[in-house]
């Protein structure tokens, strides 16, 4: 019998095996027979998985040596799928001795790694095509998306008249990074033309006029040309919009113009759009009781913008009208409206306006404030007292007053005054005068709540120490929900930028037991931290990868930081060589420890061109060969500028450019080579340039300048920068243009080569460079020209500027600037040549003078000779004049160009016609009109002591006949000088503030 037992024992497990095998049958309950067996091995199929094996081991609940449980198998499927890296997972088992071997089979998910287009016929442009595909960088990709993507692309192409376009695509899979590159190849074919417009619906307008409004016909401005335009989506839509506007201008505010269809004719490749038009009723809007222009009504009554008439919009128009009249000083104005249809097809809307008496807001009272001073509260008010000339009646409406009340409440509440009360009252007959109005804000502050104790839970001690330095609601600080909201944003931003994309924040408050002292508890849940697995930079064609990689601020192994990714994107855009920089995390929703960071770059066109035309109107006129008007006559100089730039030269992100300017007073060409972030230093910019310039901007002479320069600019801090520069130039004076005494010609106007090394320091602490209200702007420029630099004339020069801006009130600014320059001859030529002297005066330095007319003048001809030193000081009071966009300026300029630094004088009076070393004064007014590129400026100045001088009224040949060394009566009569004076009144027109 003993011999028999082993086979029985052998059979039992085998019988169990039968049961186990039957567990594969769904009815049998799956893997029950394997449940509880020891896991002896876990293999992956394929063996190379996108996640590192240690990460998989951490992730999975199945481990070698542990018992197999069905729940763990189920959980493993979920965990692996959660990573987003797998599109399918199955887990198989096979016996391994007494245990079990597991095989985890996976199929990879692929992600959109970049979408490129070839054969684009703009429009639609690349971005429009990319949007149409709905394929987002880094998102999971399945090939079943492609039919829809192709359909969407075809729709976009058809909408732009490309009916014969064909689209093919190529997929490029990279199993290592699980990227799919999608390359669309477009053959756009010829673009269709319109061949007519079909109109349907109800409208009372001639079809010809409607079709003309679409501008689907070819035209040049208002002139119609034969034939029809090409079809583009933009043209199609703007045509519809123009027809709508056309009806609106006819008071058909509710006109509906829709594109009902586009009929394509394959034979002719043309399109006939069908426009469905319902012109709706005639809607007439008017005011009774007060005159309001139609233009103003269109701004105030939203039915014009919304192109619909309903009670809500009419009521909003009602409120806007009240606000409008209140802003005009009619603070008691009432408005009501009436809507009727006097005849079919016509709707009449009348706004009945009762303006009542006009008031001026003369007083704003703020009472009860202890914690904040009056100025702090006033800064937040929108109402303002009457002031001339900008706000003759002040600015007031009930809406503004109530808005100010809310602002004051918010100010207090955000500082812990949770029980604050503010009452806003309008005071009629303020201070006993009937037309006067006052506004009173009465504040009851209540007690301030303070944070007694702050606990932060869920963060490491190191993080907590840092967080306590950035949060507002720390101990003994005001307790307010606004501060807590700011803390939440700051805390979450900190963790988001340190790889915790799932971080969440919660807070609670408990009483400390002490009145008005609250305990705060912040709870942070960090979630899983994500790291950068690697960087995937795609889309580079000519750009060297090192150019991009050196600018990427995030690296493999770093925590994922959206702010660093955003900064990198900005840096790449700053290079100016990419038209689009897309950044994304691959598999953004997947739960994995590390992720690829994608940079999809579209290189910009390599060449860019610019052309511009303009004109200069200033005192730049006067005879070219004659000696009249040494102080300049009003002249007009048209100018044209043109340039070409080659971006991303040799794939290094360097720029080579040629800019040219041609006008009647100047011709200039500058070729430059620009290297941003020189040698990888983000703060260094190298510029190598060469210049040829021929100018007559100084009335005395025309000069030719050929110059080569190398400049290295270094940004020290946000406000401070340095420039190091070496320039070598040859300046020659055109002899026949000279308008100086012949004796001075050899001294001042020989061609000269100058080698100059110079440095500039710039400190800019202004709040805005174009419209400064506060701050300081300082520059120091020093240079030296030496024979060691192959200079024929040796000198040193320094130019200083100090400007400060002081806000006197919210909109009134006192600005001042001091400019000083000094050039000292060191050797070489006997005099500083004309081209190296200081010429100044004009809109940017001293407004008593036309441009470049300040300083010493030739005693014989009266033309300016320039000087070796200058000193200018300007003071401006800048204030609002009319509304928000027009401002005014009162200014005082003083200063002059001096023959030498020791001749600088503050003397008011000019001693003689030969004396130019005194201080010229100018008073004036100016107007500024705000534009997005800075204010347009018009200045009028009056100078009580503008220079007098003696000029010469004759020709160059006559001048040569005059001998200054003989008595005047022995010279011809034309040699007698003509006393002249620079006009006491000057005007200057330019762009930007004076300083």
């Amino acid at each position, binding site marked *: 019998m003993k*011999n*028999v037992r082993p*086979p*029985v024992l*052998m*059979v039992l497990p*085998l*019988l169990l*095996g*039968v049961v*186990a*095998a*039957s*567990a*594969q049958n*769904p*009815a*049998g*309950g*799956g*893997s*029950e027979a*394997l449940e509880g067996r020891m896991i002896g091995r876990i293999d992956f199929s394929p063996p190379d998985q996108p996640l590192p094996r240690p990460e998989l081991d951490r992730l999975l609940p199945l481990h070698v040596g542990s018992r*197999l449980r*069905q729940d763990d*198998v*189920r959980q493993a*499927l*979920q965990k692996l*799928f*959660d990573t*987003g890296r797998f599109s*399918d*997972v*199955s*887990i*198989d*088992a*096979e*016996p391994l001795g007494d245990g079990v071997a*597991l*095989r985890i089979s996976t199929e990879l998910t692929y992600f959109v790694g970049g979408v490129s287009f070839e054969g684009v016929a703009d429009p639609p442009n690349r971005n429009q095509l990319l949007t149409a595909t709905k394929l987002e960088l880094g998102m999971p990709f399945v090939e079943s998306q492609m039919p829809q993507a192709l359909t969407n692309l075809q729709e976009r192409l058809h909408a732009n008249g490309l009916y014969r376009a064909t689209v093919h695509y190529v997929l490029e899979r990279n199993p290592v990074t699980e990227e799919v590159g999608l390359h669309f190849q477009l053959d756009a074919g010829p673009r269709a033309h319109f061949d007519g417009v079909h109109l349907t619906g109800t409208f009372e307008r001639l079809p010809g006029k409607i079709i003309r409004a679409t501008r689907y016909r070819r035209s040049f401005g208002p002139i119609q040309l034969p034939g029809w335009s090409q079809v583009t989506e933009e043209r199609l839509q703007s045509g519809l919009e123009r027809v709508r506007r056309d009806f609106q201008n006819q008071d058909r505010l509710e006109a509906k113009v829709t594109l009902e269809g586009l009929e394509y004719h394959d034979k002719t490749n043309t399109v006939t759009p069908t426009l469905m038009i319902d012109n709706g009723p005639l809607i007439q809007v008017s005011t009774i009781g007060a005159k309001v222009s139609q233009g103003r009504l269109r701004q105030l009554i939203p039915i014009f913008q919304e192109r619909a008439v309903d009670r809500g919009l009419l009521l909003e128009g009602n409120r806007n009208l009240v606000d409008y009249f209140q802003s005009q000083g009619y603070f008691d104005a009432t408005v009501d409206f009436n809507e009727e249809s006097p005849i079919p097809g016509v709707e009449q809307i009348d706004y009945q306006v009762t303006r009542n008496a006009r008031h001026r807001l003369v007083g704003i009272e703020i009472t009860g404030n202890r914690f904040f001073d009056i100025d702090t509260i006033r800064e937040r008010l929108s109402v303002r007292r009457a002031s001339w000339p900008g706000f003759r009646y002040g600015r007031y409406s009930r809406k503004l007053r109530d808005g100010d009340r809310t602002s004051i409440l918010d100010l207090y509440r955000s500082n812990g005054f949770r029980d604050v009360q503010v009452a806003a009252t309008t005071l009629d007959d303020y201070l006993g005068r009937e037309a006067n109005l006052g506004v009173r804000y009465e504040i009851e502050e209540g007690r301030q709540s303070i944070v007694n104790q702050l606990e932060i839970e869920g963060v490491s001690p190191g993080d907590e120490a840092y967080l306590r330095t950035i949060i507002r609601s720390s101990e003994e600080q005001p307790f307010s929900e606004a501060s807590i909201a700011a803390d939440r944003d700051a805390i979450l931003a900190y963790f988001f930028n340190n790889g915790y994309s799932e971080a969440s924040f919660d807070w609670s408050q408990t009483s400390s037991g002490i009145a008005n002292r609250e305990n705060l508890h912040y709870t942070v849940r960090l979630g899983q931290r994500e790291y950068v697995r690697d960087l995937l930079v795609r889309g580079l064609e000519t750009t060297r990868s090192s150019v991009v990689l050196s600018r990427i601020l995030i690296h493999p192994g770093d925590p994922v930081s959206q702010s660093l990714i955003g900064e990198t994107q900005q840096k790449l855009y700053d290079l100016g060589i990419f038209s689009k920089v897309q950044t994304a995390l691959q598999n953004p*929703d997947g739960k994995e420890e590390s992720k690829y960071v994608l940079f999809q770059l579209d290189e910009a066109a390599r060449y860019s061109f610019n052309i511009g035309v303009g004109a200069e109107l200033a005192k730049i006129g006067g005879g070219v060969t004659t000696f009249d008007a040494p102080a300049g006559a009003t002249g007009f100089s048209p100018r044209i500028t043109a340039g070409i730039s080659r971006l991303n030269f040799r794939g290094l992100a360097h720029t080579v450019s040629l800019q040219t300017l041609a006008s009647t007073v100047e011709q200039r060409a500058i070729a430059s080579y620009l290297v941003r972030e020189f040698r990888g230093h983000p703060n260094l910019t190298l510029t190598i340039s060469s210049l040829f310039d021929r100018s007559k901007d100084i009335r005395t002479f025309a000069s030719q300048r050929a110059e080569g320069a190398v400049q290295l600019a270094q940004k020290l801090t946000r406000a401070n920068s340095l420039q190091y520069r070496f320039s070598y130039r040859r300046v020659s004076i055109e002899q026949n243009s000279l308008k100086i005494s012949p004796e001075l010609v050899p001294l001042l106007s020989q061609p000269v080569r100058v080698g100059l090394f110079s440095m500039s320091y710039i400190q800019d602490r202004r709040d805005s460079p174009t419209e400064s209200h506060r701050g300081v702007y300082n520059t120091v420029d020093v240079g030296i020209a030496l024979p060691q630099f192959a200079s024929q004339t040796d000198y040193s020069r320094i130019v200083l500027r100090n400007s400060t801006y002081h806000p006197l009130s919210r909109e009134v600014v006192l600005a001042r600037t001091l400019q000083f320059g000094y050039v000292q001859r060191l050797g070489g030529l006997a005099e500083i040549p004309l081209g190296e002297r200081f010429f100044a005066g004009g809109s940017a330095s001293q407004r008593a003078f036309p441009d470049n007319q300040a300083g010493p003048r030739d005693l014989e001809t009266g033309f300016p000779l320039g000087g070796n030193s200058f000193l200018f000081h300007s003071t401006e009071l800048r204030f609002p004049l009319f509304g928000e966009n027009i401002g005014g300026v009162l200014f005082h300029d003083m200063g002059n160009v001096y023959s030498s630094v020791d001749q600088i004088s503050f003397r008011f009076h000019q001693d003689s016609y030969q004396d130019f070393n005194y201080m010229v004064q100018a008073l004036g007014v100016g107007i500024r009109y705000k534009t997005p590129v800075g204010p347009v400026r018009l200045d009028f100045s009056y100078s009580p002591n503008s220079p007098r001088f003696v000029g010469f009224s004759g020709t160059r040949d006559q001048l040569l006949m005059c001998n200054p060394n003989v008595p005047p009566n022995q010279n011809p009569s034309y040699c007698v000088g003509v006393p002249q004076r620079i006009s006491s009144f000057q005007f200057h027109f330019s762009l930007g503030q004076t300083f």
Partner: protein
Amino acid sequence: MRMPLLIAVMECLATLSALSTAPFAQGETLDRIAVTVGRHVISEHDILQDIRLSTFIDGKQPDFSALQKRNAAARLIDQYLVLEDAVLTRTPMPSAADVAPILSPIRARYASDQGYRSALAQAHISDADLSAQLLAGLRMLRYTDLRFRPQVEVSEDALHAYHDKLAAPQSFEASRNDIEKLLTDQQTMQALDRWLAMARGEKPIVYHEDVFQ
């Protein structure tokens, strides 16, 4: 004679066993992804288990046909969408203790506890699985009641129309409450269906067809 016979029988059994365990050598699928709803996985095991549990509750024999697998998958998708929304909207949900009243009639079908457990074992499910299934069903019902029933308003006209359509011998007033409840239930379920259709549209749902062959 007996001994060689016994050995022969055992060898035969061993051969059979070896044949039946042949799939082990090739690897048996323990579980695999059947459907994904967004990032949520419904596995093949979930589907089979749902079939087992629902047929057990209904007192029927399980049917593991492709059609039934699809039906079970659809149920599990709906269940996931509803329970996910219930969590998001913090809808109060029944607890495990609420299962007992509906579990007891199922248990009562069996003469003894042993019979009940034997039936469970035969169906390859556990008491805990059954309770969990019932709890999930209860939660679906509670969610539907709280979320959609308050939105349902049965008009008087609808009640009359239904009564007229029934042509019931009872007067309208006598059957009013029953009709109202019936129509309310119908419209509640319709509201749920509409919501589920919308919720299904908002999440990518991928069927892994191999599982449903």
